[in-house]
């Protein structure tokens, strides 16, 4: 395929999604972006004036918290993505290669179940497990292994554990579809040519599953940089992310204009990351099937 090829009729299949996105995403966010350049709501408040002060507030960061919040958002997103991949890949591989249909259905349910607990309840379950008087610390203290509770919660560690738990299923399901499509005979051929199991995996299966890895990590990254319920419940005072600040600005500071500005900034930063990511995706595997 060459880049100069003209769009084929299949391109029209983009229309329904395009329409949905223009009506329910582009237009509402255009309004929100416009709002982020106003001092108040120009529709309800005749005194609202045009200003760049919300962006200045972020860029100048005289309060000294916004840049740090952006950085910790991205850092938590990155770590969560990597850990989810490390946990999700073996499970996905197992599922994709499982012969028994019943076994497959059972593992599938076990993997999906965490997504169905409901965000708030699930987070409370993690608090019960990780807090100072929680399951882990109580047990360890009873066994005499530790004297003081381990700092498992109220920090970035607890936040990441809970985030990984929610997002592993996204990774697993995305990967399973891709790994399942890789012909197992390729791996077996490599092994019959003398490659060890690990080497056959590293040289055959892993490269072929790259599109799944990239797609899954993209999903998880996007989700974890926009999460706010989990970080605010698990992180205590030690975690402050951009989505938490946005939720604060909307829900308790009543400053949707500044929230909009923070949202625009977060969206631009993450879009830049995702476009770069997609370039890699295209380069590593995109053209392969079309060669």
């Amino acid at each position, binding site marked *: 395929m060459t880049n100069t090829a003209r769009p*084929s009729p*299949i391109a*029209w*299949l*983009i229309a*329904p*999604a395009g329409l949905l996105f223009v*009506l*329910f995403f582009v237009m*509402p*966010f255009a309004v*929100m972006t416009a709002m982020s350049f106003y001092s108040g709501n120009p529709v309800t408040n005749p005194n609202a004036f045009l200003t760049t002060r919300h962006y200045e507030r972020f860029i100048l960061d005289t309060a000294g918290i916004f840049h740090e919040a952006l950085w910790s958002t991205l850092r938590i997103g990155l770590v969560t993505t990597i850990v989810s991949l490390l*946990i999700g890949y*073996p*499970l996905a591989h*197992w599922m994709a290669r499982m012969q028994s249909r019943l076994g*497959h259905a059972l593992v*599938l349910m*076990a*993997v*999906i*179940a*965490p*997504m*169905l*607990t*409901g*965000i*708030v*309840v*699930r987070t409370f*379950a*993690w608090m019960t*497990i990780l807090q100072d008087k929680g399951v882990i610390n109580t047990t360890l203290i009873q066994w005499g292994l530790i004297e003081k509770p381990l700092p498992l919660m109220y920090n970035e560690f607890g936040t990441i554990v809970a985030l990984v738990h929610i997002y*592993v299923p*996204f990774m697993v*399901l995305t990967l*399973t579809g*891709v790994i*399942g*499509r890789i*012909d*197992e*005979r390729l791996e*077996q051929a490599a092994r019959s040519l003398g490659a060890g199991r690990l080497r056959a995996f590293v040289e055959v299966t892993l490269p*072929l599953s790259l*599109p799944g890895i990239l*797609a899954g990590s*993209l*999903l998880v990254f996007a989700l974890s940089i*926009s999460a706010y319920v989990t970080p605010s419940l698990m992180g205590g005072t030690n975690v402050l992310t951009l989505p938490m600040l946005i*939720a604060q600005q909307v*829900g308790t500071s009543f400053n*949707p204009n500044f*929230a909009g500005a923070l949202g625009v900034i977060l969206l631009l930063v*993450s*879009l830049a990351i995702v*476009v770069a990511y997609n370039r890699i995706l295209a380069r590593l*595997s995109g053209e392969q*099937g079309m060669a």
Partner: protein
Amino acid sequence: MSVARNRRPFDAGRAAYLALNALLLAFLLLPIVIVLVFALNPTPYISFPPVGVSLRWFEKFFTSAEFMNALWLSLWVATVVLVLSIVIGAACALALARGNLPGRAVLTAFFMSPLMVPAILTGLALFQAYLLSGIGRPVWGLIAAHTLVAVPYVIRTTLAVLHNFDRRIEEAAAVLGASPTRVFFEVTLPLIRPGVFAGGVFAFIVSFDQFPVSLFLVVPKGETLPVVLFNYMKFDLDGAIAAASMVSILLALSVVLVLERLIGLKAYVKL
């Protein structure tokens, strides 16, 4: 798959592989065990170790008209969203992968963007747009909003599968005289099934568990389950929300199983 695995004697590598996976599953299921304990524990707070077993929270959940209405509304909305986003998302993925569209990387990123905005802003922006345009807050507005945040999953998972399959299969079918429609329904569609399935599961769950977007778009007496649960929890953090969670798991799992029967995560097609 056509390849049968040979029965082998004890295999240390394989045992380690299985043990690792069992451990990972335990990590995923541990919090659910806690929720179950919380749901069965008679005291109105999470205590460890639990003090007894009671069904009072399940009873409270099932006898509350508010919870029940919310549960049905959520199920109904999520089902509609599931169907809409599978169709819209899979079509969009096909167009992106096969349409020779210019600026594909940018378009793909664009279709991911609803996931990258904190959902509370999406909810607020849509609420504002609905009010400004005089639409109000009809239930289709809520469905459209859920579909918007669900479609990116279907696009992503379908694209991942599309990237990996050999286009020559489609071409061969066409060379053999199959019409483009037939190629689509008999070759392309079965091949992308695992991706569409995964996306469909996400779509259903994202809608069923959707909280921040719904927050602004629900109307009094037309609230979805997560909104009702959250507002309940602000005041009464008792086992009823855990019972609700267990019921949701069972209901949603059955939907997933039906979906698995209909579409299938593994492609049971011979290559």
